[in-house]
C-alpha cells in the first residue's frame, strides 16, 4: 500500500513540471499585455515600463519561466501583478472558502443521491425510480449559473430570506456564513447529486444482479443487510472513486457558481486573474488545482484498495 502511494507521488513530480511549463507557455501565447491592463486608463509610459521591468515581462519566455521556477523551488509563488499580494497568501485566503463550498455541496450531493439511488435500484422501474431518474436528468442538464440566477431571484429578491451573494467567514458569524452558503452549495450540489445518482444506481443494479446476492437471498439473509451491507458496499467502489475525483475538481474552484454568488474563492480568483492577465496568480492556482487533482486521484486509488478486497489480495499474491 505504502509502496503504491510512494510510487504514485514519484509519477506526480514530472507531471507537475510538465503542467507548470505548459501553463506558463500557454499564458504567454495569450495576446494581451498585463502591463497595459495595469497601467491605468491613461497608460503612462513610465508606469508601463516600471511594471514590465518589475515582473520581467521584457525577458524571453524561457528566462521568465526560469525566474518563476527558481522562486517556486524556494517556496515563493510570486506576487499578484494586480494587487501586489503574495500568490501564496491569496491562495491561503481563498482556499478555505472553496474548501467549505466543496465540502458542503459534496455533502449535500451525497446525502441526496446515495439514498435515492439505493431505493431506485431496489425498486427498479417503479414510480420512484422513474421520478428520481428525471430528477437526475434535470440536475445534470440545468446549467449552474442559470439555476443560481433563478435561486437569487426567487429566494433573495422575491422572498427575501437569504442574502443574494457574498461570503462571511464562519469565524466572524456562523449563522451568516451558513446563510451565504446555502444557495451556492445547493446549486453546485444538485449537479453533483445527479451525476453521483446515475453512477451509483447503475453500480447498485449491477451488484444486485450478481450471484452472491442471489445466494445471500437464498440463505434467507435480511433484506436490509443484503442491500446495505453486501450490495451497497460493493456498489460504492466506483462511486467513491468518482466522488473523490469530483471533489478534487471542486477544489480547483467552482468558476461559474462562485461568479454568480460572488463568493471569493479560487474559481472567482482565477477568472478575474485571467481577465487581468495576472500571470503569477493564474500559474499559482492552476498548479494548486493540478496538485489537488493528482492528490485526489491518489486518494481514490487508495480507497479502491480499502474497499475492494480483490485488489488487496492481488498485491499480496
Amino acid at each position: 500500500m505504502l509502496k503504491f502511494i510512494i510510487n504514485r507521488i514519484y509519477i506526480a513530480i514530472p507531471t507537475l513540471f510538465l503542467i507548470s511549463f505548459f501553463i506558463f507557455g500557454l499564458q504567454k501565447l495569450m495576446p494581451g499585455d498585463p502591463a497595459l491592463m495595469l497601467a491605468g486608463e491613461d497608460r503612462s509610459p513610465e508606469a508601463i515600463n516600471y511594471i514590465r521591468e518589475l515582473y520581467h515581462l521584457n525577458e524571453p519566455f524561457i528566462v521568465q519561466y526560469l525566474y518563476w521556477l527558481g522562486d517556486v523551488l524556494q517556496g515563493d509563488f510570486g506576487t499578484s501583478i494586480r494587487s501586489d499580494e503574495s500568490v501564496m497568501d491569496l491562495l491561503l485566503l481563498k482556499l478555505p472558502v472553496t474548501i467549505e463550498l466543496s465540502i458542503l455541496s459534496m455533502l449535500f450531493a451525497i446525502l441526496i443521491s446515495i439514498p435515492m439511488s439505493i431505493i431506485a435500484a431496489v425498486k427498479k422501474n417503479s414510480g420512484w425510480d422513474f421520478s428520481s431518474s428525471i430528477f437526475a436528468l434535470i440536475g445534470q442538464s440545468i446549467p449552474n449559473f442559470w439555476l443560481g440566477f433563478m435561486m437569487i431571484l426567487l429566494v433573495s429578491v422575491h422572498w427575501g430570506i437569504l442574502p443574494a451573494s457574498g461570503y462571511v467567514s464562519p469565524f466572524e458569524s456562523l449563522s451568516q456564513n451558513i446563510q451565504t452558503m446555502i444557495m451556492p452549495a445547493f446549486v453546485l450540489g444538485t449537479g453533483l447529486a445527479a451525476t453521483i445518482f446515475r453512477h451509483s444506481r447503475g453500480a447498485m443494479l449491477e451488484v444486485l444482479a450478481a450471484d452472491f446476492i442471489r445466494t445471500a437471498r437464498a440463505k434467507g439473509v435480511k433484506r436490509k443487510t443484503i442491500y446495505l451491507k453486501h450490495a451497497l458496499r460493493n456498489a460504492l467502489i466506483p462511486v467513491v472513486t468518482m466522488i473523490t475525483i469530483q471533489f478534487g475538481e471542486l477544489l480547483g474552484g467552482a468558476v461559474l457558481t462562485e461568479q454568480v454568488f460572488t463568493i471569493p474563492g479560487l474559481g472567482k480568483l482565477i477568472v478575474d486573474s485571467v481577465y487581468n492577465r495576472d500571470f503569477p496568480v493564474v500559474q499559482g492556482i492552476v498548479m494548486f488545482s493540478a496538485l489537488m487533482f493528482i492528490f485526489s486521484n491518489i486518494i481514490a486509488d487508495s480507497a479502491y484498495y480499502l474497499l475492494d478486497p480483490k485488489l488487496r489480495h492481488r498485491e499480496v499474491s
Partner: protein
Amino acid sequence: MKLKTTPLLLMLAMAPMSYAKDITIGLNSDPDALDPDLSRTMVGREVFTSLFDKLIEIDQQLNFVPMLATSWEWTDENKGLILKLKQGVVFHDGAPFNAQAVKFNIERSMNLDGSRRKTELAMVNNVEVLDEYTVKLNLIQPFIPLLATLADRSGMMVSPLAAEKQGKNFSQNPIGSGPYQFDSRVPQDRIVLDKFKGYWESEHYHFNKVTFLPLPDSTIRLANLKSGQVDIAERITPTDVESVISDSNLHLLESSGLGYNTITFNLGYGENKDKDMVVKKPLVREAFEYAIDRNIINQVVFSNQYVPDNQWVSPESIFYAKDIKVPTRNIEKAKSLLKEAGYDSVNIELAIANTTEATQLGQVIQAMAGEAGINLTLKTMDNATVLDAKTRGAYEATIAAWSGRVDPDSNIYSFYGEGGPLNENGFNDKEIQGMLVEARSESDVEKRKKLYATAMKKVLEQRPQLYLYHPKWQWGVSNKIEGFKPYADGMPRLRDVK
C-alpha cells in the same frame, strides 16, 4: 425533530436585517491597490472618496471648491500655484496635516516607484513650503489643468507618517484624513471603513460603518440592491433602469458623465502604419459618419438612457461648443461620398471587446453602415486583447471609451497632443497640437473655451475618431437612504447622506 427544526429556525433568525447606521455600496469591480499614487481603477477612487480628503473638491456643477486647500491663486505668469491650507486637520493616525504633508504627498506622487500619477504631475518642478499652512507648487510650464489634477487622486493626501513607516505595504492599511478610516479588506469580497471620530466635518457624516462590495455582474448587483443587501448600487445598466424605477423600494439617481465612447480609426499607426486601409481616406470616414445614426444607437443599445453626441466634453460642461451640430444620418450622402473616394463599397474590420454591450453596439453600427455600402467585419476579442491590438496599432477601426475628467485638457491632450501616450491612431495635426498647448497654459476661461471649440471643429472635420455618446452614471438607491447626490465624476460622496 431537533435536526429538522434547527435549520428552519436558523433561516428565520438570519433573515436580512437593515442597520440604519451602516451603509453598503455595491461596486462594479474589485478595487486595486488602496493607495492614491498606485491606484488606476475608478472603483478605487470611489473608495478613496470616503478615505482620503483632497486638496480641492468639485461641486455638482463641476466648479472647483475648497476642501483641504481653503483658497488658491496662480502667480508667476501661471507657473506657480499658491495654496492656503485648512488648519486643525489630522490624519487617521493622528499625524497633523500641514504644508509639509502636502509637499510630502506631491513629491511621493511624483517619485514613488510605480506611481501612476507621474504623467499628470509632470509639469510640477518642485513644491515649496511658504509657512506652516501655505504651500507653493512651481511649474516647468504654465499648466492650468493642474487644479483638476489636484481635485483627483494627485490631490488626495495620505498620512506622511504612515506612508514612511509602512513603505510598500501602505495599501494594505491606508491612512488618510477622510471622514472614514480603513478597517479591513478581503480581496474580491469587501472593503470596510469605520467612521473617523476626529474628522473636521464629522457632523456631516452619519454612518458608523461603510462597506464596499465588489459585485461585477450587473444583474447580481441589482439583485443585491433589490433584496436589501446593498443600499446603493452603482452603474445600473441602461436596460435595468426601468426595473429600478418600477421598484417601490428603490429610486434612481443619475448624472451625465464626463466620459465618451468613440469609433477610433487607424490613420497609420504602429503595425498598420503602411498598410493599405480605406479608413485612412478622409472621405471614407466622412461617409461612415453619415451612415450612422447616434440616436438609433442610443435607443437600441442603451434604452435611450445615454447622451448621443459628437464632442469630447459632455453638453453640461462649460467647454461644450454649442454651435456644433451632430450630423444627421444621410445614406445618400454617405454613398456619394464613397463614390467620390472611388468606391462602390468598402470593407472595414472593427475590433470590439466581447462584452454584451460592446457586441450590441458593434452590431448596430454594422447594420447601419452596411446600408451605405460600408461592410463591417466585427472582430470580437476579450478586453485585454483589444487593448493590446490598439497599442500595437494592429487594428483598422475599434470602439474605444474614455471615462472623462473634469478639465477638457485631460480628455483630449493625450490623444491628439504631440507625443501623447494615447495617440494610438497616428493623428498628428500641428495646428490642433498648437491650440491644445496654448489652451493648457491659458488661465482665462473664455479664451480657453474658444481654443477648445476651434480645435474641436478641426477634429470633427478630419474625423480621426467618431464621437458617439456620453454614458451617464446611474445609481440605484434604496429608499432607506436619504440625501445621496450624484456627481458627474461618478464618485459616491457620503456627506449629509443618511
